[in-house]
């Protein structure tokens, strides 16, 4: 009998895991003892970190797309379809474009994040973002025309993808406007939902003085409640109101409805054991990357490391062994501090981050990694 491993989602976590399994279980796959299926709702993988650079004219959205078929080992069955229902009792999945259900013995949910701009009245009409291809492209046009006024970067809600990106955006915008001789005519304000400038206290402590040096105004305990596109104001739950000329936001994030509908967690995030990554509400179900509610950042490095853990655990289970691999919270992240300098953090559940001094070398290291990312997706790096 063939054991069927199904991965839902072809982002970083899904593709790294698929290739990890193709390598780790090559003997079992060749013998027909195991089958691996990767289901994604489109034929391409989208590498979202590219979007940060699009508004500044440094990258194009196409730079962040590759066909999944080129990234994933031929031993894996890659299907383009959308899972519409998960029956964790019957261990079956319904698909949008197929009349036939898929059964699984082991399910891995790597369904990622979605944006929920509609939760904030006026946001879709009044705000821009760089957390989507369309948003980043539209923001590029706005930024090119922006030569004076008040730019507000508002982080609305948490968790969100890439927790460093809001800091990166204002640091890069500050530098970009300075290089173009416009900074004296542009005020930059950064708002954050809690009482400091980043969710992680160590990163907040490092970033706050940098923001002061760069004349980036900060508003903390600011949870945007509504946007008035006509008056160009954003109002917070705490009663503050900010005028803006250009509003850039990190919109509210949610997982996919599929997760909540299956009773696996709220808001589309799967409740998991943060070490084993096993779903709490169902057996033979794992989650990784953004979809897993582990409390660590929703970042590509996290998905990458978690995929290795899930790959080891699944291989053990297929072989009738006790799985022992666990995720320790490892996260690494580059943080751009301008157009040609960056910092770097590495941390886990036990050890907090200590941001490295910004340098040009780290900036180039980040760009080099972004270029070589496709090797990670293919399971080579």
């Amino acid at each position, binding site marked *: 009998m063939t054991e069927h491993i199904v991965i839902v989602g072809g982002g970083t976590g899904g593709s790294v895991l698929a290739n990890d399994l193709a390598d780790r279980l090559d003997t079992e796959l060749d013998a027909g003892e195991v089958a691996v299926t990767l289901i994604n709702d489109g034929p391409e993988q989208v590498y979202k970190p590219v979007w940060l650079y699009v508004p500044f004219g440094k990258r194009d959205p196409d730079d962040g797309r590759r066909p999944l078929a080129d990234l994933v080992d031929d031993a894996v069955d890659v299907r383009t379809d959308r899972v519409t229902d998960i029956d964790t009792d019957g261990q079956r999945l319904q698909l949008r474009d197929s009349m036939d259900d898929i059964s699984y013995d082991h399910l891995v949910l790597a369904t990622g994040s979605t944006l929920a701009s509609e939760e904030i009245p006026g946001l879709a009409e009044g705000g821009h973002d760089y957390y989507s291809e369309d948003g980043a492209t539209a923001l590029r046009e706005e930024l090119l025309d922006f030569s004076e006024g008040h730019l507000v970067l508002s982080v609305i809600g948490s968790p969100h993808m890439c927790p460093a990106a809001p800091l990166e955006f204002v640091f890069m915008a500050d530098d970009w406007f300075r290089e173009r001789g416009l900074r004296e005519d542009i005020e930059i304000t950064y708002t954050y*939902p*809690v009482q400091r400038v980043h*969710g992680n206290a160590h990163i907040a402590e490092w970033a706050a003085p940098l923001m002061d040096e760069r004349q980036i105004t900060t508003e903390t*305990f600011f949870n945007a*409640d509504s946007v008035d596109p006509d008056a160009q104001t954003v109002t917070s*739950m*705490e*009663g503050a109101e900010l005028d803006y000329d250009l509003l850039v936001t990190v919109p509210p994030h949610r997982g996919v409805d599929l997760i909540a509908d299956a009773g696996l967690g709220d808001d589309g995030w799967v409740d998991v054991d*943060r070490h084993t990554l096993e779903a709490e509400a169902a057996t033979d179900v794992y989650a990784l990357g953004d979809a897993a509610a582990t*409390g660590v950042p929703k970042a590509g490095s996290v998905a990458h490391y978690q995929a290795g853990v899930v790959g080891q655990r699944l291989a053990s289970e297929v072989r009738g062994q006790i799985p022992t691999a666990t995720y320790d919270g490892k996260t690494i992240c580059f943080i751009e501090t301008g157009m040609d300098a960056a910092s770097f953090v590495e941390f886990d559940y036990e050890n907090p981050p200590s941001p490295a001094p910004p340098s040009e070398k780290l900036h180039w290291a980040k760009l080099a990694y972004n270029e070589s990312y496709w090797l990670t997706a293919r399971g080579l790096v």
Partner: protein
Amino acid sequence: MTDIDPDRTVDARGATCPGPLMDLIGEMRRADAGTVVELLSDAPQSLTDVPEWADEAGNDLLAVDEGDDHNAFYVEKS
């Protein structure tokens, strides 16, 4: 122990800072005025985060029950 009967409960036990506070804010965002939300948190920083935010947002922190393994916060939306 308080005898407050909350309208909604947010169980953020196991979440690290600022997760519990953000979970509370998310629930308060959806709540009508007068709604009492109970937040369960085992993150020590919630003891300072939650009162600070409730004060900043003008909501009433009705009570804090400090337990051995977690704390319960009762916040009424103004």
